[in-house]
């Protein structure tokens, strides 16, 4: 091998390393940089006299090889160059004849890029092409591969990592502000280098020491960084003594260049972070407010439930008590400690138990029930009105049952008092009524002597209206009986026809005063029905009487009875040619006391309590009553009486 050529190879390596150092120290276009590039170029031109291309490569043993010739320069000089090969994952670099100074300059600047910029640049060959570098080729892996995990830097001393740290510091020194986290990144880099070196020799190289010292200038709190370093090293398992030596070593180190101060975080970034922070704070406070609101809402609801006069019990589907309020505790004689226990164990009273245990069946909105409770000594009775409703989750699954308990003992007492009072008053009314009626009939029958035609006429009016009054009072009495559940139904097989005829006869006198014709149409062969004939007459009296009231003079009232074979029931209807009832008022006609304290629609005014009594009586016979009407053309009341009463339950005595 030509000694001259080998000599040139060594020259080339030295000139490249010199250039790299110049470039990293001086600004671009500095005379020192330009001359170092020129040196490389002239060596290359010398070499290209003998060959067209020159390849620098790295052997497996980390030896620099030029054109198959190992370069035996001093390690300390070569290491710098090898580090770049490693750093860039380059196997070999080929310079071809025709390479220009600019290409060399660009190439060197390219490999000097810091880690971030290398990553951004991507593929090395592409980067060279982008720079229009045609005569330098690299057989290499992409820049992307340079990352912490793959650790391409296997450097004997200091080396590339330290260079990266230096260039990062250099970058920092050229700035007035740092991006957020930049200082922390460099700090980590420095710690990594120190750890690696410390591991091998229990101390660090002077260049690392000086770089770290420089770095400390940028720290806001130097002591803090040192403490952090100490922590990092002791966490890695190094001896405290060794670490302390290292730290004092670092303290002692003097550096020439003392410029450098903690850099503020870049303003925009800072602003952005501040803004983000403020937004987060706002969100957090909004969230906090929502939580507070919900907490206070819950407290309020808890408070309401706690102070409710009604008792409230919630039971889960397994029958365990989930919740009781104080009122319920008192009414059911249980305590808060019973929450979580099965209802069966807690509530001893059987009536109550069936209630709380039984869930309302599907479709049933609310299950209402009145139950009587006796105190342990049986002396006092309590009546609770309970309403139970199933609790469903949004998917419609049963998650429990809520029951409210109302102590209606007093209310029931008052109702009984009212009923008794009404019954008493009504009975009291009978005596003067009968006395008047009898006296009038004595005069009217001329038992007391002759009377004039006019006198007879008015006495008849009096007699008729006394009968009406008697009927009304009887209605009142019946109502109190019905209310108290004391209405007795005395059943016997009876003919519907007879019942209808009797009622029609009673009311015919009244009908005549209005020239109203009452017709009775009874189907032939109607079977006898098991019913209380007196009560059914009362129903008919009420229905026909009502029809008379609402039918103008010269109208017609038709009473019809047919047998419905399919349903095995008699159907009795009373149809009038009266004024009719508006659709919206139809449902109200059977209401008890409808007329009290309400505006009375004229089409049902004066129906009195007769219709509600009729309804109760028909229902006691297991029948049903309904009304159909067309305003202006009449009303039809129909009630049914089953041939066999399947319920066969008589209320009262």
């Amino acid at each position: 091998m030509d000694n001259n050529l080998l000599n040139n190879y060594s020259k080339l390596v030295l000139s490249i390393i010199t250039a790299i150092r110049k470039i990293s120290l001086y600004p671009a276009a500095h005379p020192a940089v330009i001359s170092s590039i020129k040196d490389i170029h002239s060596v290359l031109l010398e070499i290209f006299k003998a060959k067209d291309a020159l390849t620098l490569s790295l052997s497996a043993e980390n030896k620099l090889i030029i054109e198959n010739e190992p370069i035996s320069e001093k390690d300390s000089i070569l290491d710098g160059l090898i580090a770049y090969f490693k750093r860039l994952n380059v196997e070999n670099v080929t310079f071809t004849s025709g390479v220009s100074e600019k290409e060399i300059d660009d190439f060197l600047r390219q490999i000097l890029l810091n880690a971030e910029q290398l990553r951004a640049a991507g593929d090395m060959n592409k980067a060279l092409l982008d720079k229009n570098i045609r005569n330098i080729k690299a057989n290499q892996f992409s820049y992307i591969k340079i990352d912490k995990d793959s650790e391409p830097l296997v450097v004997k001393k200091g080396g590339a990592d330290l260079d990266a740290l230096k260039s990062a510091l250099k970058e920092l020194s050229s700035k007035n502000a740092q991006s957020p986290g930049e200082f922390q990144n460099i700090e980590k880099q420095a710690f990594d280098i120190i750890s690696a070196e410390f591991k091998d020799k229990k101390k660090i190289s002077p260049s690392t020491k000086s770089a770290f010292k420089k770095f400390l200038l940028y720290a806001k709190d130097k002591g803090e960084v040192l403490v952090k370093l100490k922590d990092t090293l002791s966490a890695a398992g190094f001896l405290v003594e060794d670490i302390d030596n290292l730290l004092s070593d670092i303290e002692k180190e003097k550096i020439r260049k003392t410029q450098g101060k903690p850099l503020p975080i870049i303003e925009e970034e800072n602003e952005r972070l501040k803004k983000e922070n403020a937004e987060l704070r706002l969100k957090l406070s909004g969230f906090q407010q929502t939580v507070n609101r919900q907490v206070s809402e819950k407290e309020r609801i808890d408070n309401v439930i706690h102070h409710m006069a009604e008792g409230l019990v919630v039971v889960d589907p397994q029958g365990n008590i989930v919740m009781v309020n104080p009122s319920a505790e008192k009414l059911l004689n249980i305590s808060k400690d019973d929450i979580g226990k099965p209802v069966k164990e807690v509530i001893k009273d059987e009536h109550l138990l069936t209630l709380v245990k039984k869930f309302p069946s599907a479709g049933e909105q609310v299950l209402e029930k009145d139950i009587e409770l006796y105190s342990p000594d049986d002396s006092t009775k309590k009546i609770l009105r309970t309403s139970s409703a199933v609790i469903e989750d949004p998917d419609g699954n049963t998650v429990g049952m809520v029951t409210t308990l109302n102590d209606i003992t007093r209310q029931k007492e008052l109702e009984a008092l009212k009923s008794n009072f009404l019954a008493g008053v009504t009975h009291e009314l009978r005596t003067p009524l009968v006395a008047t009626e009898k006296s009038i009939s004595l005069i009217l029958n001329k038992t007391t002597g002759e009377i004039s035609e006019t006198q007879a006429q008015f006495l008849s009016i009096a007699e008729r209206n006394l009968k009406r009054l008697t009927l009304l009072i009887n209605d009142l009495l019946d109502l109190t009986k019905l209310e108290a559940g004391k209405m007795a139904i005395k059943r016997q097989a009876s003919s519907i026809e007879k019942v209808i005829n009797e009622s029609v006869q009673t009311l015919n006198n009244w009908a005549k005063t209005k020239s109203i014709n009452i017709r009775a149409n009874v189907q032939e062969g109607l079977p006898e029905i098991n019913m209380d004939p007196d009560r059914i007459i009362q129903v008919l009296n009420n229905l026909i009487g009502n029809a008379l009231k609402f039918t103008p003079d010269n109208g017609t009232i038709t009473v019809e009875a047919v047998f419905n074979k399919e349903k095995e029931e008699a159907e009795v209807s009373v149809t009038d040619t009266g004024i009719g009832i508006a659709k919206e008022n139809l449902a109200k006609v059977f209401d008890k006391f409808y007329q009290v304290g309400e505006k009375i629609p004229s089409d049902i005014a004066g129906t009195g309590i007769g219709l509600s009594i009729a309804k109760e009586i028909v229902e006691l016979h297991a029948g049903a009553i309904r009304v159909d009407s067309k305003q202006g053309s009449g009303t039809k009341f129909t009630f049914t009486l089953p041939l066999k009463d399947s319920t066969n339950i008589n209320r009262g005595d």
Partner: protein
Amino acid sequence: MEKQVKILLVDDEADFIEPLAFWFKSKGYSVITASSGESAIKIVKENTPDVVFLDLNMPVMDGAETLKRIREFKKDIPVIMLSAYIEDSRMPHAYSDGIYGVFYKGKDFSELVSLLDVALRHIKT
């Protein structure tokens, strides 16, 4: 002698009208009766009574409706309402259509005289 005062009594309840008519006649008034709003309107049109006693609660056409119809052709005829209910939602309508007063059916007939006097004074002026 003054011309006899002609009274129209309107009520669907004949048993109420009969004694009332007799009572008025005994006091020297001339009485016509009607059992529905419709016939009352007809009578007012044809016979022109001096005063009308009109029941509020009647089937088909109630007193308030009858009064409204009468007012369509006879603005000045004095009308006194008859009612069994102290409070009736239709009464204010009747008042706004112009009535001289209300006679509640439970009261003494003598009260009718004072109501009638007010109405008659109106006729004379």
